[in-house]
């Protein structure tokens, strides 16, 4: 791998955003994701190569550490922050179509439920894994999901709930989505849920943690 790309992947993995970032302490004063991405572009390295060989590699490494219990969510998010700093420089290449997101996912906490920290963690992990996430917030009606799908056709949908009384709304929402946009994949998550419940309501997948969801999604688009 190109030396800049290797350095860049380490910056992403360890959450070194730019030269001013105080963390990690042993990288203080060194160039971060921001400066190294600029350098990579100046060196005519293709945007898709920067994305796949450096940024995604760094995210994958920290994701694996998280899966092994050797990193925490803040490690993942700080890595995502470094990745976002790099992505700022890659934006023009995305706009021209030279580089692409993995796909779009519409997320929301279902009707009647105000809990959102779980959904937000999933959102951030997915963003860090290269997904374009449309967050509809909390207490989201079925109609709002339908409206969002009209605006972002072909998106995946992620539903979240924390209450035993609101998880039941997932069934209606899933049904309405499948009736209106057949073929749309709907995924569910939240503390009171189970695979059995997911199967019962006709959703396409249930995930206990953000990493397994991100891994699954990456698998289906490959």
């Amino acid at each position, binding site marked *: 791998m190109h030396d800049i790309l290797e350095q860049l992947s380490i910056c992403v993995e360890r959450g070194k955003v730019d030269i001013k970032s*105080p*963390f990690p*302490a042993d990288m203080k004063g060194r160039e971060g994701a921001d400066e190294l991405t600029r350098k990579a572009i100046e060196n005519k390295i293709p945007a898709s190569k920067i994305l796949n060989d450096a940024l995604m590699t760094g995210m994958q490494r920290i994701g694996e550490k998280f899966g092994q*219990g*050797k*990193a*925490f*969510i*803040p490690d993942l*998010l*700080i890595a995502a*922050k470094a990745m976002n700093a790099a992505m700022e420089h890659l934006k023009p290449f995305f706009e021209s179509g030279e580089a692409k997101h993995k796909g779009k996912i519409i997320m929301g906490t279902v009707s*009647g*439920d*105000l809990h*959102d*920290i779980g959904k*937000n*963690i999933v959102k*951030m992990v997915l963003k860090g894994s290269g997904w374009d996430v449309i967050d509809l*917030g*909390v*207490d989201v009606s079925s109609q709002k999901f339908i409206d969002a799908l009209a605006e972002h056709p072909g998106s995946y949908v992620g539903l979240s709930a924390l*209450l*035993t*009384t*609101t*998880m*039941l*709304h997932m069934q209606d929402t899933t049904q309405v989505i499948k009736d209106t946009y057949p073929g749309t994949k709907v995924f569910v998550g939240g503390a009171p849920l189970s695979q059995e419940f997911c199967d019962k309501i006709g959703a396409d997948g249930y995930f206990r*943690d953000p990493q397994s969801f991100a891994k699954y999604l990456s698998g289906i688009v490959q």
Partner: protein
Amino acid sequence: MKKFNSLAISNADDLIFGNAQNPVKCGNGMVIGDGVVFPEINFTLPSIKISGETWKEVLQQYREIADNISRRARALKAPGFVVEFEQLPPMTQNPQMGAEITEILKNALNQLYQNDGIKNALRVTVVDLRDADRPPQLRDGNACHQTLSAFELSAQAGADILSIESVGGKEIHDQALMYADLKGIIASLGILAYRDVSWLWQQIKTITNRYNIIAGGDTACGFANTAMQLAGQGMLPDILAALVRAASVPRSLAAYENGAIGPSKDCAYEGPYIKAITGTPISMEGKSSCCAHFSPLGNIAAAAADLWSNESVQNVRLLSGNAPEVFYELLEYDCRLFNTATKHNTQRQLRELFVQSDIRQNIQALMLEPETVLKISRAIVEQTGGYNQTLAAAKTAFHCMQQAADSGLVHLSEIESSWFLKLKQELDEVPVLEDEALNWLYENYGSLFIPESYNLKNLV
């Protein structure tokens, strides 16, 4: 506004279950914190939609729960207990719904007292709906009016104690927590949450005064318990969750500065601090709440409890009976043990067993150890203002954790140790002055909160 400049309990031996400096009389003959620990039973609906079509069934569920609990209380010859009715969002959004259930529960409790002489009280906890919009409008708007109206109607319908898990500052704290951003965590708790709790409890106190009932207390559930749960799932460092626990005390204390008199909410694991500082009785939950969530504080949480709770359990059938009745029995037996220990003057030994059985297992438990509680509480009352108190609590908690790790009392894993150093550096960089912290908050999280919600100047 009441200010606490010294500790109500200054000797760790006195920070013990069943005894509070300022016991609370409420409901049907209950006196909480006067030498006896009582159960506080909590419950929720099974999987059922709450709507006009299901409403009769919903009410029937609550009637069944009340009947089952009353039956168990009679069977166990219970001296007394508290029922907590924690509303679900539609019950606060439509306050008359919450009031209807309150009335059902209150009637059942009145009957139990009249017929069997079993003392009891009903706590109603309304949902803080103000969190629905981001950024939240906290002092005005529909969600705020519905929340306050739910308090009013619950009081009218027979609630003896009012409580809430308030959410001011959470819009920043959620974000800061996920990034382990201590500046954001401390500013959101010390400036925003502290201001919101102060304002909100002035409103609640007006209502409780009008109905001559009890302003119970708040909980940092949305802050410190979120951190605890995320740490439990390996998503956050335990040391961060422990730090947030201590840092959340001043925002919960603000309720007592503004009229709350306890018992505190069960999920407020900051309860022992509240008790040490204010002398009010506290409700706690530990291993008895594993039906609702897991925690590393199962035994130590009992050390200073005046009410012993199960947090929440669905009304579903188990082998012996329905879950609320089952958990009521479990709480009742735990309370018998507390109270027998007190009767035999062995309460300190029992408390020590609660403490020692948890303290080495997880650094979060250290935050509930009586000497640590007093050390951090002292640091809080030596300061004035929410921000200074929050920063002092965090710094003292960090110092206590460092001492515990250095002395070998608790073992930190490699990854926890690396975060320990990171947080130490972060903590050193947290602004000492509130104005400086506020400016930092505007700069870094300005788009996420509405300054007017906190009676702060809008700089835009």
